[in-house]
């Protein structure tokens, strides 16, 4: 287990591979662990970090650190402490919100952004997220795909107040406005059957900046990386392979591809 101390509190992370740095940020249910298959797939060409954000997994649990801006500040401190200059940032749900806010605040630190199940507005999140206990949420949000246990078993480790605080933060910011200010290439991924985050309407997506591109996974729910890992990993690798600054609009879902050890 790898940790850094930020402001006297322990932040847990794991890392795999060598190359340009990527940072994975988890969502409201689970921890760094459900990124493992994605990290494995990316690890031959990149150095893949995955964090437990404040209040989740093995990281410190203190209510004063749970607001969105504190998770954003944590990421900045983490990069600073590890000497990471510029990253590709991949976030899911809550992690997608943190990633988007981070890219808006620190555009020079983010080379590209992949956000999955990003709520573009407080009204896009199912109210159940605010009311149900975490293990119950995990059962509701996760399908029965083989990889989903990694999120299910980690769900009870989170502090429910971390989820509540992030949702309160979401009320205070207009994530659609934040997205309008993003200058980094941004790939948005949505699961067609997502019960937690409602995908934006087509006219909203069409109004996003040129460097944004959206892809829908027809067979996936809230966790496209677990519901359809091979397609997700292929898409991520294709996105990472684009020259820096290129729009992801040329990307599309391709035939399944699986990382293998040669």
């Amino acid at each position, binding site marked *: 287990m790898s940790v850094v101390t930020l402001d006297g509190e322990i932040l847990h992370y794991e890392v795999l591979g*060598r190359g340009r740095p990527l940072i994975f940020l988890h969502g409201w249910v689970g921890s760094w662990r459900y990124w493992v298959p994605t990290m494995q797939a990316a*690890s031959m060409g990149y150095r893949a970090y995955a964090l437990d954000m404040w209040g989740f997994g093995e990281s410190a649990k203190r209510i004063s650190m749970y607001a969105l801006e504190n998770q954003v500040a944590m990421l900045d401190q983490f990069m600073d402490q590890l000497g990471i200059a510029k990253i590709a940032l991949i976030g899911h749900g809550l992690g997608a919100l943190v990633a988007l806010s981070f890219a808006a605040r620190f555009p020079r630190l983010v080379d590209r952004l992949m956000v999955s199940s990003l709520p573009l507005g407080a009204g896009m999140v199912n109210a159940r997220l605010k009311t149900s206990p975490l293990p119950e949420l995990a059962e509701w949000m996760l399908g029965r795909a083989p990889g989903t246990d990694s999120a299910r078993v980690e769900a009870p480790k989170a502090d429910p107040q971390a989820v509540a605080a992030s949702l309160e933060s979401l009320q205070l910011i207009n994530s659609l406005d934040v997205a309008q200010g993003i200058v980094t290439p941004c790939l948005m991924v949505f699961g067609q059957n997502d019960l937690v985050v409602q995908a934006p309407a087509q006219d909203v997506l069409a109004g996003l900046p040129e460097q944004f591109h959206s892809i829908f996974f027809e067979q996936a729910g809230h966790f496209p990386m677990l519901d359809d890992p091979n397609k997700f990993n292929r898409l991520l690798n294709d996105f990472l392979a684009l020259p820096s600054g290129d729009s992801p609009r040329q990307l599309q879902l391709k035939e399944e591809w699986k990382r293998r*050890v040669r």
Partner: protein
Amino acid sequence: MAKILIAEDERDIRDLIMFTLKFAGYEVIATANGEEAYLRAQVEIPDLILMDVRMPKMTGYEACIKMKEIDAIKNIPVVFLSAKGQDSEVQTGLRVGAAEYILKPFSPDQLTEKVRELLKKQGK
């Protein structure tokens, strides 16, 4: 927690195997060549040894032969990781005492599954 010793000279592959097995809940000791694996096996007494065939200093075959000469570790199953299509490697490996072969390329999931299966056979 079952203990697995791995020997793989390619750092990226070694890291990926180590990460995959640790995530699956095993204690993992990583070595970079056959000689190191042979020495560490005597100290750590793992439940399973995974070795690449072609490694510097001492190949996987040579390490396996030497391991089978030491009473404390001779019964630990040794599994070779070998490139697909190298049938002669498979035969040589089995002749020097390997319990099994895992053919490359393999996915991390396949590796975990195979390891689980092999440890189950030993009641671990």
